[in-house]
């Protein structure tokens, strides 16, 4: 398998030579700026917007769904509209679908064709989500893959895999952990990890943060 897992980024050396691909990006960017197709300021703002999108946004949505059944119902019906209610800009998302994990059902998300992911509310996807092996295996052996991520599910629990497309992206609403009845919405949001919203983990227990 010619999996290429970004090895070249692992050792941070003090090289001053740009790589071939770095040169291509910077060359293209400066030509597009010279030709007036974009400005340096637009590039800077696009990078800032990317940095500002983190799983904390999705966690806020999930925590609200845990404490507010009416909101959860709206989230399950039209996730994009519900997310927008919380003041979160859904950017270029076309359709967002929220899927709920319960005691009997566990959902997990993949994009077998590439890397589609609800970026406006979770940020950029982790490397493994884009990896050829995750994309290949989770659709045929979801339980095995979840086990690799440290999540062993009992046989009675049904597992469903959602394959994303550019037009439909998914947000998993993890099950609310037991023993969290007294927690504030803000504290609940801290239990909602990125991985739990992809479906490769459960939400944290309150004693785990």
């Amino acid at each position: 398998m010619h999996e290429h897992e970004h090895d070249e980024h692992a050792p941070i050396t003090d090289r001053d030579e740009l790589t071939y691909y770095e040169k291509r990006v910077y060359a293209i960017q400066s030509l597009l700026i010279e030709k007036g197709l974009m400005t340096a300021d637009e590039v800077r703002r696009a990078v800032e917007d990317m940095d500002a999108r983190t799983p904390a946004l999705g966690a806020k949505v999930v925590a609200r769904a845990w404490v507010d059944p009416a909101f959860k119902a709206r989230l399950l019906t039209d996730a994009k509209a519900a997310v927008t209610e919380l003041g979160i800009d859904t950017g270029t998302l076309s359709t967002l679908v929220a899927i709920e994990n319960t005691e009997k059902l566990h959902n997990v998300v993949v994009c077998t064709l590439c890397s589609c992911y609800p970026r406006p509310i979770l940020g950029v996807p982790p490397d493994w989500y884009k990896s050829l092996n995750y994309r290949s295996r989770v659709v045929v052996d979801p339980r095995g893959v979840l086990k690799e991520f440290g999540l062993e599910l009992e046989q009675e629990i049904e597992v469903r895999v959602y394959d994303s497309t550019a037009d439909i992206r998914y947000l998993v609403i993890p099950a609310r952990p037991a023993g969290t009845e007294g927690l504030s919405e803000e504290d609940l949001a801290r239990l909602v990890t990125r991985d739990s919203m992809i479906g490769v983990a459960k939400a944290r227990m309150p004693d785990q943060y």
Partner: protein
Amino acid sequence: MPRVHDRGGWPEAGPINQAEHDLSLWEKRTDALLVLLASPAKQVLRVDELRRTIESLAPDAYEKLSYYERWITAVEALLIEKGILTREEIDRKAEEL
């Protein structure tokens, strides 16, 4: 035989490398370029065109390149295809860096 990008269910796939890295500057710039070029305000290219170009990479290139290496290769190919930039001017600019 599915095409190279159509990965679901490939039998030889091995363990998943769960190591993560923070995006480096050139990767963020590549992402930003695509976001801007595909934005409703500019519409220089579309995400579906990017997909088509990435999916048309030679199979060994698809598997060998990192994620954003695939992206910038596709963005470059599309900008040339559309006559917005030429390979020669990109080469020249890259030489100066």
